[in-house]
């Protein structure tokens, strides 16, 4: 396993606006970490700060306990929110060039470029100009550019935005694979369902502060218990309306959804359901990440 990337107390002000306000979280190696937050929460500023692209008023970024400097950043891969490649350069030459800027020799860079273009299914466009590629293919090339030097830390700002399902699958597979091989992978996204599928853990920020972090499992099972119950023949959930400690959150299509408080035993709910008829479904529901997110940012 590699080293963890630690973001510690990052503070950044732009005039009267505080973009980052003592932001602290850790990206453990071997995991895909989803970096979430509403627009303007400070995600891009954080990622830029990791690469020294913005000055900080306070705080530091460490990797394996050492403050991150130019030498460490050579081992990092970055895909910025606003994609950036030379539009006139040939795809393969551009990736080789970026590989060499990360310290690879010419031969290794060429081999790695070929491998990544193959892996991301754009090898046939290696001799095309970047500007002639479709949006999706440009995105794949941009990811190849972030991966060519086999980085230990991968920081990707919205890598899945605007991609079709095939593109999402291709890039998603690569991210998971990178994490499995012991690297730190941090990526931001607004596609919360995808994040839930791809990530082991998430960090949610708002107004430049961390509001929630943890593994997806912890977050999905944390908070109040949720039940989904179906009783044969029942359409309006009348049986569930008067159980103390169980609030009815939704009724529809024969399904009754309840939020239980800490005091009530779920068996009491089951008893009430049985009393109403034949119970065909009784499931503890996981919270969707989108619910966690809305709760966390309060909107």
């Amino acid at each position: 396993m590699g080293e963890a990337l630690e973001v510690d107390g990052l503070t950044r002000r732009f005039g009267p606006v505080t973009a980052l306000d003592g932001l602290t979280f850790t990206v453990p190696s071997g995991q895909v970490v989803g970096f979430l937050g509403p627009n303007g929460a400070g995600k891009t500023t954080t990622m830029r700060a990791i690469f020294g692209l913005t000055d900080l008023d306070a705080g530091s970024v460490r990797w394996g306990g050492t403050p991150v400097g130019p030498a460490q950043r050579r081992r990092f891969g970055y895909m910025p929110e606003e994609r950036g490649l030379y539009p006139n350069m040939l795809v393969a030459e551009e990736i080789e060039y970026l590989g060499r800027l990360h310290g690879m020799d010419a031969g290794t860079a060429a081999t790695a470029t070929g491998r990544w273009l193959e892996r991301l299914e754009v090898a046939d466009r290696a001799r095309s100009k970047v500007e002639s590629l479709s949006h999706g293919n440009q995105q794949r090339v941009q990811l190849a550019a972030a991966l060519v030097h086999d980085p230990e830390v991968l920081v990707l700002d919205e890598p899945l935005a605007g991609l079709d399902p095939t593109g999402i699958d291709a890039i998603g597979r690569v991210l998971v694979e990178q994490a499995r091989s012991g690297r730190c992978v941090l990526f931001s996204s607004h596609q919360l369902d995808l994040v839930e599928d791809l990530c082991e853990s998430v960090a949610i920020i708002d107004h430049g502060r961390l509001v929630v972090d943890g593994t997806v499992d912890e977050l999905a099972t944390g908070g109040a218990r949720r039940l989904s119950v179906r009783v044969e023949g029942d359409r309006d959930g009348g049986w569930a309306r008067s159980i103390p400690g169980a609030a009815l959150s939704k009724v529809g299509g024969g399904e009754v959804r309840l939020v239980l408080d800490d005091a009530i035993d779920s068996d009491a709910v089951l008893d009430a359901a049985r009393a109403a008829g034949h119970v065909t479904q009784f499931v503890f529901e996981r919270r969707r990440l989108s619910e966690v997110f809305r709760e966390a940012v309060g909107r």
Partner: protein
Amino acid sequence: MKALPIVIAALAAFAAVRTRRRRRGRGSSRPRGAVAARLRDANLLGDTGLVAGREIRERVRGRVFRVVTIILFLVVAAVVVIPTLGNGSSETQRVGVVGGSAAFDAGLHELATSVGLSAVVVPAPDWKAARAALVAGRLDVVVDAAGRILVPKPVPPTGTSPTARFALTLASNMGAHRAFARAGLTPAQAAIVARARPVGVESLHPGRKARSTAETTALVGVILIFVVLTQYLTWTLMGVMEEKASRVVEVLLATVRPLQLLAGKLLGIGVVAILQAVALVAFALLVAEAVGSSVVQGASPEVVAAILVWLILGYAFYSWLYAAAGSLAERQDQVQSLALPLSAPLILGYVVSLTGVSSGNASLLVKVLAYLPPTAPFAMPTLVGLGAVTWWQFLLSVLVSLGCTALVALAAARVYRTAVLRTGSRVRLRELLPTFGREASSSAASTSR
């Protein structure tokens, strides 16, 4: 027209090199041999060298560069070759002589030389036969030693064509000889009178002396510096702006320091600029040598050296400014308002120096501008061409320029670093000032590089 094959050969060689390079570009970019691989890996300048290498490759490969280079080479070829066209065979006058003698023929040769021509004497049996040869175009002039001259077209008294010059001189000379004979002069006396030269006329103000070779070289050099600087500084400006606009700069700066990126870019474009300038000068000298043109022949070596030195210094000084300006903008329309104030001192230096070298006098203004880094690239070669500067003055100006370039580079790198990652509207210098202050005060807490 002996120039034509040489020009065609030079262009063909140039085209061949270009095609080869293009083919190479289309093929795999992997190094071919161990030597090539070692050369590519032996990157002495680190990231700066890699950035410069990419800049050179992409620039030289670009269509704009190809077109501009071909045009420049054609212009140089035209400037050198065109004045020599029409000289060729007509510099020699084919003179049909009726009733001549050895002395008369010798006189014709002497006469032709005195007006910068050479004469081929063709003896003719009689006037009729000579006239027929003139009609057929086998002769340029027919002369009868008894005192008749015949040319194809009327010759005005101010005619400057070779035939006119020769015929007019011949006419007045033969007229004089006829007068000497009537006056009863002996051949010896006649020769003395014929060789009479006017006495000099002095004036209160010194006259414009003929332009020396050094001055001509300086004149051509000042124009060359202006053309090359204007072209490549615009590239620098647009190049930085395009990197910002395409956002690739964010990817680059995640691994390369801003100063390295900027220095590599300027170095790359600078190398292309200097190589192109040197190739143009070499091409001009080669073509001039081949066609016997006097435009650049015998160019003064110290002036050529001064031009090259100041081309490099001028590029070094201005390129930082243009790069900083490019980092403030990300669209063509935003860049316009930035380019104008930058090019003002460039144009001032150029115009003043061009006037100076044309007039042959080093005015006080030229002498002052020769020590100011923005105008010295034009004014100093002018002074060298005019012979109005000593070696230590030259060196002083070089040192001043180098010192100022270092200061400008530091400031430009700072502006670049802050401005190039700010997107949206054009960044104003005013907006950067508080950042500088803040940076200085919070550098301890900053991850700034």
